[in-house]
């Protein structure tokens, strides 16, 4: 296991398409790091550069104490789990798992024990003599994981490994993945566009957009202290309300605005709004224009004059509750600069 350092990676496709514009971050030994961002943000390219499947135009990759920017993938001591698993269809499951060891000339006996270990860890023992075509999606996914783990690589790279599973299986596998990596305590870099995966699995999240890092931090930091409006809106469903401060004041709220109101945006998470059917001190009255109940929670779209907010409350909201009284949580407000969209504190 080892630390991975990514230093100022730049990559351009063709003449002009800048995919990565100076990416730097670290994954410490044993850390599970997610690269999170919308599709086209460059996260997969970044992972492939770390793997050595593509080469950056400039910048450095360190794995352990070795600089590997120009090293081919097989000499980087990495393992990778591909989005479509990339199992060799003509080889048995056991051969798929053992391929990397065999090519590195491990003795037969060790290949066998390691393959068996990995298979046990992932519940694959009964399937070792089958071919990938005879496996279900979830089983293939586990074979792909086993193939990565059997090598005991310095770092495991995972490219949206859950995206081809159906919802139920995805949730279960997500939990298993977390337990597994906690058990082997391995360094992992995990690409995903799914915020829930990133939030639940990671020790650290790197949020990317348009080839630039938006924020690096723990899931808690990313969610509660977004550094700009992109991060604020990308995480959370429904996303954070972001409203120009003057509109807030106009509606009758009186939060403490840091600096000039016209230069500020207020961010507040839908679940943080204090909302009630009953009028109370300082609460502003809103019309409920849409009520979306999912059972465990209810999302309300509410309007007061030009100001529209979304609120997320656990539990129900009365069907005939056409008025909502809202006050802002003073300790949970995020402020952004209106022109730079960066957080200001």
């Amino acid at each position, binding site marked *: 296991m080892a630390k991975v350092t990514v230093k100022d990676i730049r990559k351009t496709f063709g003449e002009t398409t800048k995919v990565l514009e100076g990416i730097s971050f670290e994954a410490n030994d044993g850390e599970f790091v997610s690269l999170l961002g919308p599709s086209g943000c460059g996260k997969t390219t970044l992972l492939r550069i770390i793997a050595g499947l593509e*080469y950056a135009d400039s910048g450095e990759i360190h794995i352990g104490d070795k600089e590997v920017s*120009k*090293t*081919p993938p097989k000499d980087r001591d990495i393992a990778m789990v591909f989005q479509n698993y990339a199992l060799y269809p003509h080889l048995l499951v056991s051969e798929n798992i053992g391929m990397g060891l065999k090519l590195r000339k491990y003795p037969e006996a060790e290949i066998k024990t390691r393959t068996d270990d990995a298979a046990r860890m992932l519940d694959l023992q009964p399937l070792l003599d089958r071919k990938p075509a005879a496996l279900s999606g979830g089983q293939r996914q586990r074979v792909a994981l086993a193939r990565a783990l059997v090598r005991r690589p310095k770092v495991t790279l995972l490219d949206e490994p859950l995206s081809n599973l159906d919802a139920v299986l995805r949730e279960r596998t997500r939990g298993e993945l977390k337990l597994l990596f906690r058990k082997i305590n391995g360094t992992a870099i995990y690409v995903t566009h799914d915020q829930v995966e990133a939030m639940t699995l990671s020790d650290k999240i790197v949020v990317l957009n348009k080839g630039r890092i938006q924020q690096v931090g723990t899931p808690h930091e990313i969610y509660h202290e977004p550094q700009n409006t992109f991060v604020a809106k990308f995480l959370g469903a429904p996303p954070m309300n972001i409203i120009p401060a003057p509109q807030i004041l106009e509606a009758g709220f009186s939060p403490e605005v840091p600096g000039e109101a016209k230069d500020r945006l207020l961010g507040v998470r839908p679940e943080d709004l204090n909302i009630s059917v009953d009028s109370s001190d300082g609460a502003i009255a809103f019309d409920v224009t849409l009520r979306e109940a999912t059972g465990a929670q209810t999302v309300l779209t509410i309007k007061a004059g030009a100001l529209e907010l979304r609120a997320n409350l656990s539990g129900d909201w009365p069907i005939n509750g056409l008025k909502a009284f809202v006050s802002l949580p003073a300790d949970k407000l995020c402020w952004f600069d209106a022109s730079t969209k960066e957080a200001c504190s």
Partner: protein
Amino acid sequence: MKDEGTQVWINWSFAVPALVLMGLVNVIPIGQAFYFADGFSALPLDTRLVSSLKNTFVFTLATVLIELVLGLAMAMVLLKPLPGRGWVRAAVLIPWALPTAIMAMAWQWIFNAEYGVMGDLLYKIGLVSSPQIAWLAKPGLAMAACVLADVWKTTPFMALLLMSGLANIPDELYEAAEIDGAGPFRQFCFITLPLLKPTIALAVIFRAIQSFGVFDLVWVLTGGGPGGKTQMIALYVYDTVYRYLDIGYGCTLTLVMAGCLALMSGVVLLVAGREEA
């Protein structure tokens, strides 16, 4: 990591043996044809060239049209779910897979003037008054025999091409048309034909080019006879070079042939392209 330039060379080297072979066999000879060609001034006066071009065009037009119609019918039948479809398809493939020259021998026997089974069959049905028909000795009949043999041989290929095109037309379109009240004939006209047009264009170009270069079938079946009435351009080239040993003029004729082919594919592409737009 090797630097990019070297890598590109290594990559190309995978393709080099193939490229060299094709260059040697397909490209250099065309260049050589230009080099060796002579006797251009004789072209306009060459009545044999004119008649063999005429024969080749007639043959090409007839075979491609008949094959298109029969091939389409065959494709539509073969696409239907049938018991033993694999065997039916294998049977259909056989004419395509058998050696043309050898099957030309078989046709020669079928069209034999005295003992041929074709004359006898037609006589038994009552279409002709005598079973002895000199198929290969009468100009019109000889050409018909060549066309028939080629149609037999190549319709399966046409059918295969069209089948793959037909299979790509979504079933929902037919179902929608049926709901709109179109019967089988109108479904064919309004859905099958328009959607199949690109495939048909491809198949027609391809078959026309092949047909225009016909050699072995005619050479074995009629030898270009009777009296040159089934003499095709390829047979003329062959005769010029191997019987009259005039390689220069042979090359010139080759170029004429290549020009005709380029012209034909151009016209078909143009027509197909205009219809698309």
